[in-house]
């Protein structure tokens, strides 16, 4: 039995299904991220857990107790919102104390301010704090009520890149320190992969895959997951016995098993899984193309390679130190690491 269980959650808005039977289970102390594009239902799921939306069907259980019909103010869920949600009429300390005062619990404001690294800013009002500081106070406020589950609704999306990375690491540190069961909703794959014990990728109100970050990244369960998580190339090919054919290039791979010979397929491969070498000009059956652009991304440089005999462009990552070997216009041979391919019928 999980600490937090969502069973068969369904929710529609004006006939449009936001959740189409969501099942999810979180172990105590686990941080699970729900990742997906806008409209996939991840925020709706979180709001149903918080009690701000009512599910059309299904149930929410905490420690085995059904809380589906319990009002939001009786659920003991700590939530950090995407929008800055501190009460403008209260100081940071008063915001943190709000929930405990309602519960008539002893004040722990100082301790919580220290926990989020803002011990000296308790007397400031929200408008006197930066966005990152406001979200830290919001986190402390959510933790102050000693919630059964911590709910994070894209709490970092309004922050600039550097603050976002710092705060996400802080959230993970605090969550691990307190052993707090946490459901984290985000559309930022890097964020989800960096902080989660498990990542649930959602599409059209359903979980496409729920697994550890490395499995989701390395072994995507579907084309959607592969394309949504990380950067991928989708190359059009044809299934053949024991592999796939892309133009004149034939690649032996078990990834195409079960797909009828001659069927059109998408070969999905990540830029870092493709090897590249200068092409000698001899036709040795390799996948060849020409470098048409370079993008410097810091430690790696992304080459855009137009495949020979067509318009398909494949992105290939190379260490930036080697990028000089492949200036624009260079003929290159690509080496697809067959074990890391995903092949799906079109």
């Amino acid at each position, binding site marked *: 039995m999980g600490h937090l269980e969502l069973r068969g959650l369904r929710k529609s808005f004006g006939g449009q299904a936001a959740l189409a039977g969501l099942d999810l289970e979180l172990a105590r102390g686990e941080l699970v991220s729900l990742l997906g594009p806008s409209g996939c239902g991840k925020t709706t799921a979180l709001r149903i857990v*918080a*009690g*701000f939306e009512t599910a059309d069907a299904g149930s929410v259980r905490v420690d085995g107790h059904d809380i589906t019909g319990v*009002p*939001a*103010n*009786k*659920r*003991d*869920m*700590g*939530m950090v*919102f995407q*929008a*800055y*949600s*501190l*009460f*403008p*009429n209260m*100081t940071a300390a008063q915001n943190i104390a*709000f*929930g405990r005062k*309602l*519960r008539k619990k002893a004040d722990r404001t100082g301790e919580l301010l220290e926990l989020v690294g803002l011990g000296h800013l308790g*007397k*400031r*009002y929200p*408008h*006197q704090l930066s966005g990152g500081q406001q979200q830290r106070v*919001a986190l402390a*406020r*959510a933790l102050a*009520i000693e919630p059964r589950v911590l709910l994070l609704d894209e709490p970092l999306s309004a922050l600039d890149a550097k603050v976002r990375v710092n705060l996400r690491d802080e959230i993970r540190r605090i969550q691990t320190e307190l052993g707090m069961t946490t459901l984290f909703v985000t559309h930022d794959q890097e964020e989800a992969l960096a902080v989660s014990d498990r990542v649930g990728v959602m599409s059209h109100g359903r979980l496409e895959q729920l697994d550890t970050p490395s499995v989701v990244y390395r072994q995507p369960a579907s084309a959607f997951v592969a394309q949504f998580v990380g950067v991928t190339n989708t190359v059009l090919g044809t299934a053949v016995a024991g592999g796939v054919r892309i133009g004149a290039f034939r690649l032996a791979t078990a990834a195409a098993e079960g797909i009828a010979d001659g069927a059109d397929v998408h070969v999905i491969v990540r830029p870092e899984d493709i090897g590249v070498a200068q092409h000698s000009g001899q036709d040795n059956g390799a996948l060849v193309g020409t470098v048409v652009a370079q993008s410097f991304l810091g430690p790696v440089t992304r080459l855009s390679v137009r495949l020979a005999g067509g318009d398909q462009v494949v992105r290939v990552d190379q260490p930036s130190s080697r990028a000089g070997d492949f200036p624009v216009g260079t003929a290159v041979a690509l080496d697809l690491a067959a074990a890391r391919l995903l092949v799906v019928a079109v």
Partner: protein
Amino acid sequence: MAVKVVRWLVLLAFGVFFLLPLLAMAEFSTRGAGGTRSLDSWSGIVTDPDLVDAILVSVQLAVAGSLLVLVLLVPTMTWIRLRLPRLRRPVEFLCLLPIAIPAIVLVVGMAPLYAWVDYFLGGSPLTLTFAYAVLVLPFAYRAIDAGLSAIDLKTLAEAARGLGASWAAVLLRVVVPNIRTALIGASLLSVALVLGEFTVASLLNFDTLQVRVNLLGKRNAGVSIAVSLLSLLFAFALLFLLSFVGERRRGAAAGEG
């Protein structure tokens, strides 16, 4: 430089436009016999027991009317924004409707109702509170609507609910403090309107400040003008006081950092 001069000229023109009638009223109400100055008209205000009663009734009506309209509107408008957004336009229309209906028409409609009010609650002039709540509805609605639009009501309410607040606590501890300026504005508009209202009170036969001023004007123009000037000054003082309170609270909030 030219812009500055124009600004000062505009300010001066408006100052004269607004102050001149007030100065004229002050001058008229202090005229004594044989071209002398006298405060007889002003002292006449406190020596006229009917006038004092009327002032007290109007002040009570202003306070009661403001409170009633705030108590009605704030929870209703908050709930509509949070839970029933489809009702926002119809409710807005209903609330703004009284501004489009002449007071005389309202009285014609209210007169039979007031026969029942008189029967159940007695003939106290304070029963005018109900009529005045209707009259101030459009002004109070607009002020509160602006206040609610200026905050992220949904997120704040959800944050408070998530922390364990009942709906009453959400209203009193989160919504009201954060729309304080709007509430002050709504109260001020309500007070000013009630203090200056004549038609409804007169036609429903209640003795309020403006009704008494009208009667006095027929008998003693000096006292009538003195009372009118006093009520205007009272409204200005109230405006100043309320805006000062709002500013002071904001300043205190900012200063605590």
